[in-house]
């Protein structure tokens, strides 16, 4: 019986590590994304961009594997029965963010939009805001597991930064449609701005649910 307990403790530790690793993956993907967009804006679809895009694909794949592992562990070993559903939902939501990063970088790779230099600064700023928004979401999510009292603080940051991304993306779209660019070009760039801003929206949705989970987390 004692041996079983030790093995149970070991299993718990291993699952804990997997959850931490899953969060690390999301942080990694935000960093690579910021770098990839900068590279794309300066070099278009270069070898460096291809490599960064490949890295994001790999992280997305690793995150999927970890997500399945975490879900399997939770159910097969009957862990945290009262909050299992919430953790499952949270992990699924976080995974959606990672998938979106992959989708956006691949879209850049496939469509190769021609973005004039005058929009680069604002687009880079939007990407940084999106990345910051997701980073705060990850901190809030980590806090849910260890220190759920501060979830609200980071959630507030996510809400604030998400509204900033709305402002930045709005201004960017306005200036694009005010320009003399051909309509097809305007629509294409605008769709890119939208998909990038969507990442922050997904992070916000994730936080909405996380706040409810955090309330349930209190004993």
């Amino acid at each position: 019986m004692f041996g079983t307990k030790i093995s149970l403790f070991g299993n718990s530790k291993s699952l804990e590590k997997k959850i931490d690793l899953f969060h690390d993956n999301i942080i990694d993907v935000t960093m690579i994304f910021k770098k990839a967009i900068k590279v794309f804006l300066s070099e278009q679809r270069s070898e460096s961009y291809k490599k960064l895009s490949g890295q994001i694909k790999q992280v997305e794949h690793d995150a999927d594997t970890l997500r399945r592992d975490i879900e399997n562990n939770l159910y097969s070993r009957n862990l945290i029965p009262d909050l299992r559903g919430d953790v499952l939902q949270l992990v699924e939501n976080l995974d959606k963010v990672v998938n979106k990063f992959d989708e956006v970088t691949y879209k850049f790779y496939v469509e190769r939009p021609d973005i004039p230099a005058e929009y680069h600064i604002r687009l880079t700023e939007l990407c940084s805001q999106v990345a910051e928004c997701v980073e705060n979401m990850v901190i809030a999510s980590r806090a849910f597991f260890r220190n759920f009292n501060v979830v609200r603080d980071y959630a507030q940051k996510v809400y604030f930064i998400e509204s900033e991304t709305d402002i930045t993306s709005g201004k960017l779209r306005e200036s694009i449609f005010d320009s003399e660019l051909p309509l097809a070009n305007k629509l294409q760039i605008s769709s890119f701005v939208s998909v990038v801003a969507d990442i922050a929206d997904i992070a916000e949705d994730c936080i909405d649910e996380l706040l409810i989970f955090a309330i349930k987390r209190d004993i």
Partner: protein
Amino acid sequence: MDYVFYLFLSSGLFLGWSLGASDASNIFGTAVGTKMIKFRTAAIISSIFIIIGAVVAGSGASETLGELGSVNALAGAFMVALAAAVTIYIMVDFSIPVSTSQAIVGAIIGWNLYSGKETDFSVLSKIVSTWVICPILAGLIAVIVFLIVRTFLKKSKIHLIQLDFYTRIGLILAGAFGAYALGANNIANVMGVFAPSSPFADVDFKLFSLNSVQVLFLIGAIAISVGVFTYSHKVIHTIGKGIMSMSPIVALIVVFSQALVLFLFSSEGLRDFLLSHNLPALPLVPVSSTQAVIGAILGIGILKGGKGIKWSITGKIALGWILTPTLATILCFVSLFFLENVFNLKVYS
């Protein structure tokens, strides 16, 4: 004589079986219901510790019941236990939270009335006061433990997965403590009335020995364990949903509080320690684990603002306080009359 004794003892064993079937759910109900612990594990731990508690520390609460009414004829003891068991069955059938202690006290008073023995009102008032004190004390302990645990959890920042592991360990330990306290406190309900007529000889196991009453308590505790194994899983799956929904940690706090209250009402060592230091001690009386659990849950529920509590249950408890002993008294009195006049059995001497 032995054959007759076992025949009469059957009502006590039936009472023990029903106590095991219903009260084990108070110890491990939520843990099993929320799938934190397997039923088999819970049943094994409960049985072992109920037996240890009953044999090692069952005499304290039993003495107080003896003071209330020393049922001095075997047929009388049989009817006292049977009247209590039937009362419990009827109350459970009407879904009213029932206390084995109240049923047995009611039945003993019924025997006192029938046999013309005087009921010691100072003992009775001591017992009745515990019916009120027990849930209140359990509620207070639960509130204090809840506040300590919540503060600790906020500061300790234990990972959710790790916390789950510790909660499981805690539920097993608190469950074992709860089972020990249940055995120690409630064996008096099951076997107390048979104690004056116990025919068993002392048994020496070399390492330890059991006196006549302890052998009787061992048999009663085995009956409780059989109840745990054979029927408690049916009750276990409904417990915890009755008053309010609970997290596993709250369940742990409730079980611990209940166990502590039962322990306080049955520990001779603690009573002697308090009295030797001129401190007020609680009487050693069999109390209801169901009411202790309800008190603990209500305490935490009130602390959380009272939302989510089904208040109708408190009305049912109050109803149970009055109905259980009254019904047991009437049932015992009437049945003793039949036993003596129809079956020509000696129900008191």
